[in-house]
């Protein structure tokens, strides 16, 4: 029974249907329906993967192993929450005149395409197709970032597209070199570009070529994944995009690029059996974490702070993979899941605040948001506490797993550095959120609007999921993550 293709087709169809439909409410419903279906398919895929290890379709063109199944789950959850939130969000935006109905239609068309692109990335077996899919997601998200047509969002979109395309060009060069290594092995027949094939022949590939390929892929996909020092587009894009889009960008699109980089990392380790690629990932990961902390500390804009916090979390996930012990990789995958559940809530809350206060500057919003938007403020507080890694929420669990894995494999200094970076960003975010949410309302500014707070179902879904999975890790999910961890660690 076909499983992978519908995951791709359903969002594509939803996107195209939105072109014809008139009412924005219907478009939102379509989006929710599409990603609801993909979530269901994703769960089915997980059961299949646990049963058969790898699920392939179209003679190996689409293949899904444990890692990609896990990514499918993340993508559909985040996209579902985003489309749930986007419906009411744009109603208010249109009412406030910030965006024209045409643009809203553009949003509802592009978001499912964006989702479909991401699905293709994780399901594509062929590295070239994977590259094309990542390029596709990049392009669709550019127009989403430029939705508001303000000077700053255009600037952000331009930087996003230039840096993104440049990065992907380098990534393409990396893919070409990988393919060249494959061709060198058997020059006569046209080798298949499939990932599974590549892994089977990894042993005989030319190590020097693969090193060069990995370097290009690292810079290329690293730019898309927002690893420092290639992260400069990230704060601009995530802060200027409409909140649903920045939720998707931060929540999962960074991880898609990281997924692609991971594929190259697995390939290189399988071929070189050395710490070559691991060292780079470690270096860039730690650098991202340490670079994010000062920016968070002195940040003046709410969504930019959340963007830097994503930078820090991606850095942590990348370092988790780079520590290369089964426990740390398991921790990193778990962290991906929890971060995907937490970050969108923060962006939705930021969206509500943006629409109420018409600004994202801490100075303008000022203290006392709790008094103006109680429900949003509470959701933001909970998600904030989760983001800085406090126990009731899962992120503490995954961070501690990564750290204990690091120490168990005797990489004490690196774990200590990770801990220092986490503490630094903790101080920054706590200080900013406390100054923002608590306190008495200063005179003037919008009165506490008692109307029904928007975006609650989306936030409730994510926070509920986060709390549920912080306390309970269902067995199939656990098995999936262990399988994925073995895959990345190169032991399966």
């Amino acid at each position: 029974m076909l499983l992978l293709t519908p995951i791709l087709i359903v969002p594509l169809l939803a996107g195209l249907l939105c072109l014809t439909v008139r009412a924005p409410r219907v478009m939102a419903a379509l989006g929710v329906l599409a990603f609801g279906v993909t979530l269901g398919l994703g769960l089915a895929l997980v059961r299949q993967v646990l049963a058969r290890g790898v699920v392939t379709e179209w003679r190996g063109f689409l293949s899904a192993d444990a890692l990609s199944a896990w990514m499918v789950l993340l993508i559909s959850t985040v996209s579902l929450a985003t489309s749930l939130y986007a419906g009411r969000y744009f109603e208010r935006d249109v009412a406030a005149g910030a965006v024209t109905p045409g643009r809203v239609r553009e949003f509802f068309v592009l978001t499912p395409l964006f989702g479909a692109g991401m699905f293709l990335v994780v399901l594509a077996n062929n590295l070239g197709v994977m590259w094309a899919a990542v390029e596709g997601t990049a392009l669709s998200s550019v127009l989403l970032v430029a939705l508001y047509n303000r000077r700053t969002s255009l600037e952000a979109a331009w930087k996003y597209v230039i840096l993104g395309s440049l990065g992907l060009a380098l990534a393409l060069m990396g893919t070409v070199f990988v393919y060249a290594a494959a061709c060198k092995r058997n020059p006569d027949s046209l080798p298949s570009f499939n990932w599974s094939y590549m892994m089977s022949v990894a042993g005989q590939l030319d190590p020097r070529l693969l090193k060069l390929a990995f370097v290009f892929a690292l810079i290329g996909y690293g730019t898309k994944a927002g690893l420092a020092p290639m992260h400069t587009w990230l704060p601009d894009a995530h802060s200027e995009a409409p909140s649903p889009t920045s939720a998707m960008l931060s929540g999962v699109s960074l991880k898609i690029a990281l997924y692609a980089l991971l594929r190259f990392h697995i390939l290189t380790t399988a071929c070189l059996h050395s710490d070559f690629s691991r060292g780079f990932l470690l270096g860039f990961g730690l650098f991202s974490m340490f670079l994010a902390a000062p920016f968070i500390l002195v940040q003046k804009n709410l969504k930019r702070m959340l963007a830097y916090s994503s930078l820090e979390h991606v850095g942590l996930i990348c370092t988790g993979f780079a520590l290369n012990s089964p426990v740390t990789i398991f921790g990193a995958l778990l962290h991906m899941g929890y971060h995907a559940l937490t970050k969108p809530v923060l962006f939705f809350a930021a969206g509500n605040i943006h629409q109420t206060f018409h600004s994202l500057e801490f100075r303008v919003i000022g203290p006392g948001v709790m008094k103006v938007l109680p429900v949003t403020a509470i959701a933001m507080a909970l998600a904030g506490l989760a983001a800085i890694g406090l126990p009731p929420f899962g992120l503490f669990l995954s961070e501690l797993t990564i750290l204990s894995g690091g120490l168990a494999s005797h990489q004490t200094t690196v774990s200590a550095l990770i801990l220092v970076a986490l503490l630094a960003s903790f101080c920054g975010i706590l200080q900013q959120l406390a100054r923002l949410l608590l306190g008495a309302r200063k005179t003037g500014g919008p009165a506490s609007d008692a109307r029904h707070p928007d975006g609650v179902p989306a936030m409730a879904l994510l926070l509920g999921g986060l709390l549920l999975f912080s306390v309970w890790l269902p067995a199939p999910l656990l098995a999936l993550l262990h399988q994925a961890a073995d895959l990345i660690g190169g032991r399966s």
Partner: protein
Amino acid sequence: MNMNDFSATLLTCALGAYVAGIVGALLFQRAEKLANGVGFGLAAAGGVCGIFACASSLATGAATASQSFALFPSLIPYVRFGLRADALGCFFGMVVSLLGVALSIYSLGYVRGYYGHKNAGVLGAFFNLLLLATTLVFLADNAFFFLIAWELMALSAYCLVSFEHEHAETRNAGVLFFIMSHLGTGCLILGFLLLFQASGSYGFEGFHALGDKMPAARRNVVFLLFLIGFGVKAGMVPLHIWLPAAHPVAPSNVSALMSGVLIKTGIYGLARVCFDFLGTPPNWWGVTVLTLGTISAVLGVLYALMEHDLKRLLAYHSIENIGIILMGLGAALMFLHSGHPVLASLALIAGLYHTLNHAVFKALLFLGAGAVLHATHTRNMEDLGGLAKRMRWTTLCFLVGAVAISALPPLNGFVSEWLTYQSLLQGFGTTTSLIRLMFPLSGAMLALTGALAAACFVKAFGVTFLGQPRGDHARQAREVPFPMLLGQGILVAACVFLGLFPTVFLKLFDPLTRQLTGQQLSQQLTMADGLVLSGGPAQGGTVSTPGIALMLLCLLPVPLTLWALFARRAGTRIGPTWDCGQRGLTPQMQYTATGFSKPLRMIFKALFRPRREVQREYDFSPYFTTTLRFESHVEEVFQTRIYRPLRWLVLRASRRLRALQAGSLQAYLIYIFVTLLALLLFAL
């Protein structure tokens, strides 16, 4: 059902009561009175169960043989929510439960002040969460669960500290508290992970006496990490700045709980790590803890003397008492190193008994301060005065607390300081190196601290309760509702009982010292069937607080006979206070808190660096001033010399780093280009 199951079930229902308290308080948020009743009622019930559970398992010695039992099945693979009510955990559990009961009853009355403008339900919920988390911290039996409980405790304490978050001062204090606490937790996480690395598993049993198996360098690193981590939470001097900021702004029942129990988690941690995990310590550990303890004690009381905000004064006193406890622990570590387990357990008992005493009388004093705040809506001692006649029972309770904290004989402060003196005295003979000079010197500093504490509490009690009311708030003060008095009454009873019958409590310490140092001292320390407390060696000096109290009563007939003989016909007349014949004393003529501490401010000028500004406005001649503004400051050395410059440096560096993201696309492209070139050139 043997004793172990009995205490286990009691413990579980205590925790259950707290959880019910949280849920109940949140559910009935709308009905304030109900939320208050349910929330704090259940907290009190939980406390009572906790006391019986811990006391019973300590008394019957079940604590030593207790196994850990999982609180609830953990759905996460390698995390096990195991509790183990061992001796040390039970002792601290008893402290938190005892305080839980008294404070909850007090809160029933205190929270009425919040009806109408603040949400009593949320306060009740977080109060229960704090009690739950603190109890779990004491009873957790693996590092993972310990850290989770530790962070939950810090989180709920943060929410409680910034409960009245309308004022910016409260918010800043809350953030400062949480950040410093979390930095401490960072050190703890690293420490526990290093232990996990050495032992292979998270369980505390695996960590037992792990120190001997670890290389010396790593063991010292682990010790320093734990010292910093737990030192921040305990409020040791260099890391204490959050304490005088956070406690005054929190609601009084919360600051009582924080001062009474929260900072004791730091002491529990140090005791658990230094005595249980790290095996026989090198000498410099004990010396460091003793020195830091002494410095904390002296600086704590000196800064307390300069305060005229009642709750900041009490907060600084918490630092002082933590210093005294650390002196006990430090001395115990040094004795463990020099191979005197009996003396080590004496010092340990001194430290831990002072922990219990401090928890009780500090909570009592904070409740007193809370009652004053509830009645007069101000914490500034300069506006109070004359409350003795208006709030009769609160005055009595505060006086008992003041006598106890100043370590004056019949009450419990004296007993634990007497034990500390005994251990310091007997410590002199343990080594021949010059280190032994530290004992008498820290003994002298302890004496200085005790006397300064007495001076500080004469000021605090005298200026707040005696004399004439200085402000109209104080003039209209009325006695606080009954539950608040009952809460204070329980703690007064505890103070008196702990003071008069220390030998009863020494038996509770037996399982504890047997677990940590392998000694059992209760026989050695008690004489004359429990009435007299001995210092250990045969003729080593004894004290009997019940004896002192009894003799104070027996000597009462002496003045009474003198009265009967001479003064039967003498009458009493009420007249104005003697004012050298002036027109009458105004309240402003009384001695103020600042005035009271003026001599000490002059004597310790080098430390305080007092600064005073006098602005004089006059119309035509400087000799006829119309208005005079006087301002005097005492410089908090740690803030101005260490923390503020540090913070300024970090912020300046971050701002300079911000220039990296200066907006120009060219710069961003150059970053990527340089990275690419670097990798191509060097990495291949």
